[in-house]
């Protein structure tokens, strides 16, 4: 047994126990085989996420990440603040973490392994701090560790007390180099992690999900990873590209757009919640995926604009409305240079309007389609006989696209006092139509 959850632990199961012994204690114990590939993938996505805190990140498999943070301390407001942020971030992603800060990578790793979450600032203090740690923190061969144990060496302090040339003979040059690197006596260059140029993370769900709302938890994790990665890239996006994977490689795609480019995880999560609330799943989902292929530069100037003026997590009204009602339900208005009244306007992207002044009488309401009016003695009626109030306006246009019109327009008022914009065709049956309302 490598790890167990709290209920299992309370029944006497603990790490290091053989599986058979554990099963004997708890018959309905569920045992999962360790999945190294998945662990490595998780470590890689965490490295991508951690890139926001340091541009020098290295993987230390199977479960550690090394971050060079000297250069980041000022930016993040000091050691304690940075650690808190990393800790909270990992927790939000669903990971338990231990951290330690030391002048050498191996010392930090060893301290973190032993749960010594402390900060060691100078190399000279390393022997004293590391001394009490058990030998098992060394990433060494088990037979070598056993041999040392047989020699009565229990703690690092015991090991460091031994004469150097004797150590070299007994342990070999590699182990001596390891100790030198641990204590900072010689350099320990790391292979730096290179974050991918695009973001594509997939997460397997622990169980099939049939209610869209239940996807929020998993997707939230991916969004947090994405936003951490975007931070590291100094980039932002305008659209979340989400794929919900069903059985047999079928997928449902979800796109959630934002009006202004962003990398604010809280904003995306709120929009996601809105969208998921209204989503009906046709099939159960087994995996979720989040992609970001098109990155947009987020320069210092736009950061000011976003970071200062807008609070974290605050959502543009437009994005919120669109997430719930769909893009087509939220629009702007524009005028169009066109004589035919029904073509003299169009929907537009909100905020992006052409505005042509007009000096003729035009109603504030337009009917989607002109409605033919009833007539009485050849006179138009709408809840009573209409009284034509202003001189007519003749509009003839559009012969070039076969949608030509020839009409005489009038302002008309019915007996109960409503004002309408009506026209009479100049051709054919010379019918009367209602096209607008003077509201």
């Amino acid at each position: 047994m490598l790890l167990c959850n709290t209920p299992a632990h309370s029944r006497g199961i603990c790490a290091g126990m053989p599986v058979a012994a554990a099963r004997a204690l708890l018959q309905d114990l569920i045992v999962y085989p360790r999945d190294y590939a998945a662990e490595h993938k998780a470590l890689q996505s965490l490295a991508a996420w951690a890139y926001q805190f340091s541009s020098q990140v290295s993987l230390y498999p199977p479960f550690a990440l090394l971050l060079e943070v000297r250069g980041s301390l000022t930016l993040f407001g000091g050691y304690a603040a940075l650690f808190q942020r990393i800790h909270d971030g990992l927790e939000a992603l669903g990971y338990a973490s231990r951290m330690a800060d030391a002048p050498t990578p191996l010392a930090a790793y060893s301290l973190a392994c032993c749960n010594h979450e402390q900060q060691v600032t100078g190399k000279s203090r390393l022997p004293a701090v590391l001394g009490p740690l058990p030998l098992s923190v060394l990433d060494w061969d088990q037979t070598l560790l056993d041999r040392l144990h047989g020699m009565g060496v229990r703690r690092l302090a015991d090991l460091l007390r031994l004469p150097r040339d004797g150590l070299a003979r007994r342990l070999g040059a590699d182990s001596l180099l390891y100790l030198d690197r641990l204590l900072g006596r010689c350099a320990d260059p790391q292979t730096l992690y290179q974050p991918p140029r695009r973001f594509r993370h997939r997460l397997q769900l622990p169980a099939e999900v049939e209610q869209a709302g239940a996807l929020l938890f998993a997707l939230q994790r991916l969004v947090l990873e994405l936003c951490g990665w975007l931070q590291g890239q100094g980039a932002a996006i305008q659209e979340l590209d989400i794929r919900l994977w069903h059985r047999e490689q079928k997928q449902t795609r979800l796109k959630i757009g934002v009006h202004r480019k962003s990398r604010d995880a809280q904003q995306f999560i709120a929009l996601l919640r809105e969208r998921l609330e209204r989503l009906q799943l046709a099939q159960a989902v087994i995996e979720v995926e989040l992609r970001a292929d098109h990155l947009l530069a987020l320069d210092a100037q736009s950061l000011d604009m976003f970071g200062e003026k807008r609070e974290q997590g605050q959502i543009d009204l437009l994005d919120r409305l669109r997430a719930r009602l769909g893009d087509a339900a939220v629009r702007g208005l524009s005028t169009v240079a066109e004589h035919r009244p029904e073509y003299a306007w169009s929907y537009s992207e909100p905020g992006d309007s052409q505005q042509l002044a007009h000096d003729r009488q035009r109603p504030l309401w337009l009917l989607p389609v002109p409605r033919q009016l009833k007539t009485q003695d050849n006179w138009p009626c709408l809840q009573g006989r209409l009284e034509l109030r202003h001189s007519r306006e003749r509009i003839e246009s559009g012969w070039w696209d076969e949608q030509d019109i020839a009409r005489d327009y009038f302002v008309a008022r019915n007996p109960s006092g409503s004002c309408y914009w009506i026209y009479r065709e100049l051709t054919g049956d010379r019918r009367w139509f209602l096209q607008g309302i003077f509201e």
Partner: protein
Amino acid sequence: MNLDPILQRADVWRGNRFPARVEAVSSGFGELDEHLPGGGWPRGALSEILMAQHGIGALRLLTPALARLSQDDKRWICWVAPPYIPYAPALVDAGIDLSRVLLVHPRAQQDGLWAVEQSLRSGTCSAVLAWPTIDDSTAMRRLQLAAEAGSALGFLFRPRRLAQRPSPAALRVQLEPEPGNGLSVTILKRRGGWACGPPIHLDVPVQQHGRAMALHSYSATAPGNFQSQWQ
């Protein structure tokens, strides 16, 4: 006996005055403004406009204020589920900056109320126009609170038959057509003032010549006097 010291007291309220701080936006109709607390349509509140039919000038009653908001306030003017298409050329003629106009067309009634509430609350709308037909006082109260939170002017156009129903709106006016270009406005309720009896007669011509009219009516109240002469 000298009444002045008593009248100066904070806990003495004089019935013939509107409360000191009603933030309002001039309607552009001087005669109407005189009867509205704060001298115009209340900001951060719902105004209910009750009418029996379309085509009598309910929107023309609002366009001067909307024109001004679109130019000075710069936030959205949000129309949620309008009954017809707001005709862009007429809006431009009325002086409304189209780039501030946001149209929302929800499919369901419930989504409509949700959209109105979100728009009012967001703080990014100067005015929100809606045509709710339901009679739900809880929903109305939510909208009133949302308008307060977002400091928006909420205009609800509702059927006249709801005039007898209680409403949390800060202002309720009932409109009736009059001969010619006339519109009679009866104030049924105004927060911080008595309901006033006689209808106000306004002229809301079909041909508005918005910009010219807007300039004219706004010059009547000096810029600094935008909120109210009663402040």
